């Protein structure tokens, strides 16, 4: 195992970390000049790319919030609202399967559904609701949002579902017996104990979504380019240090979030792990 871990560290983790090094070099074709410079960062964080990056953050932030709003109640219900049985098993399998299906194949279908001559428009026009096709359905931010919500839903549900499943039913029942309304039990018992799951869910959803290239390319149609396309542009323009700089920025964000989580966990563990502990005061 030691051999494997060493290989993993050198062969996989090192290349990822080397992005930081490359981002400070100057590129010439696919080789790099060993001179230290910030020019890569300057080339990435220029006006139009800044705009793309901000747009990515906005889209990913909004979709992540929507996922959380949809996934938390559903995960809570899956964990505490339904008994073990066929329904639950089937729902859980439905939440596993999408991880292993081709993302491009299931996104492409939105095009004939949303398009100018697509299903929705021809239905609306056929029934006489409107006589001009709606253009805002496809190749817009709306389409990108719609295309992202489905595929990233399981990544949000799973961590929250697991963390809520681990909460002892007796804790909730005790709170209810002591006179808490369902909402109070949710706020004071379930919510604090599911924080790790929520944090994990947000990470598992938001970070891969930042690098998503399928929904934006197929449904954004070049008009709503996000971070992945910026990567593509930089690589195609042979600005490899630039792409590395963008990657390093993402890596940095990733590390900051990871550190915040570790600290949050440390605090959570040092404070009362049992919600009734804090109620004693």
């Amino acid at each position, binding site marked *: 195992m030691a051999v494997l871990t060493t290989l993993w560290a050198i062969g996989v983790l090192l290349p990822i970390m080397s992005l930081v090094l490359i981002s400070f070099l100057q590129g010439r074709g696919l080789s790099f000049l060993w001179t230290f410079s910030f020019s890569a960062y300057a080339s990435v964080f220029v006006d139009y790319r800044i705009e793309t990056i901000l747009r990515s953050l906005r889209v990913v932030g909004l979709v992540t919030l929507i996922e959380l709003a949809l996934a938390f109640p559903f995960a809570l219900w899956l964990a505490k609202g339904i008994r073990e049985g066929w329904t639950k098993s089937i729902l859980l399998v439905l939440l596993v399967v999408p991880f292993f299906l081709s993302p491009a194949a299931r996104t492409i279908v939105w095009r004939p559904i949303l398009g100018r001559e697509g299903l929705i428009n021809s239905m609306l026009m056929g029934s006489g609701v409107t006589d001009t096709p709606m253009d805002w359905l496809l190749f817009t931010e709306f389409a990108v949002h719609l295309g992202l919500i489905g595929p990233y839903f399981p990544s949000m549900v799973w961590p929250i579902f697991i963390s809520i499943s681990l909460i002892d039913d007796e804790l909730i029942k005790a709170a209810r017996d002591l006179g808490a309304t369902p909402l109070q039990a949710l706020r004071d018992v379930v919510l604090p104990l599911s924080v790790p799951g929520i944090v994990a869910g947000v990470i598992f959803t938001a970070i*891969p979504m930042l690098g998503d290239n399928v929904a934006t390319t197929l449904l954004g149609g070049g008009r709503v380019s996000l971070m992945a396309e910026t990567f593509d542009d930089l690589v195609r323009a042979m600005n490899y240090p630039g792409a590395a700089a963008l990657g390093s920025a993402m890596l940095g964000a990733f590390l900051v979030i990871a550190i915040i989580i570790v600290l949050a966990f440390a605090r959570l563990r040092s404070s009362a792990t049992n919600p009734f502990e804090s109620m004693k005061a």
Partner: protein
Amino acid sequence: MINPAGVFSRTTATIAIAAGAFALVLLYAPIAGLALLSFSTRPLSGIPWPMTMEWYASLFEGDNARWVEPLVTSVGVGLIVSALATVAAVVIGRLIPLLKRRAGLLAAYLSVLVMPGILVGVAVLFFYRGLLDIRTGLWSVVLVHFVWALPFALLCILIVAVRFDHRLVEAARDLGAGAFRTFLDIELPLLRPGIVASVFFSFLLSFNELPRTIYTRGGITTLPYYIWTASAAHSSQVSLIYALSAIIMAASFILVLIATRVLMRNN
């Protein structure tokens, strides 16, 4: 009783179910739509009727059959990745529950799970092609797929390995079995559900992988890459892509069902 733990009233349960149903519809409507439209005479109109088998039939005609070579490549890569990831996952996974300080090790292996695919792809391209000047190709595709599959494979093994009663291994040792014999007769059968699930899942993850492949493929064309280029371009091939994708999707679906069944039967 709809409410074992008492956090739900009838109204809140309805809201929760509605939220989940909404997301699941957004998730599965395109999948169902793909299957339906693959039978449509005009898939690009979004209207499933009139139905036809034309696209499926023409999948093998002349130039249309160009997907066969990428398919063979993808199956080959998938099998290699599946074998490598599962072996590595068993080697690591059977020891992790025994370690005292395992948080760092787990983080090292599982952290790649949340890294955006293109980031891993670009990193591998720059490091090996840029810094070390090694040509990309089959090996780099296998590498990035391995990186993608290993965390999942490891989780499959860990689910089984953490429930593993290690006194069984000690008992076998006490009774005189060698290290290899113990592994073969005691550990392997107990880990089998995890191994089977890992083989299936790793294969599927590799088989359907796209963002990492784009940057590291060298001259290799995998099936998802073929479908991606054909569907991103507004080519006449798109109708065929629907039929082809529907077949792959159905096959993947069945494989996942088998794997989850194997994994769940143990629990």
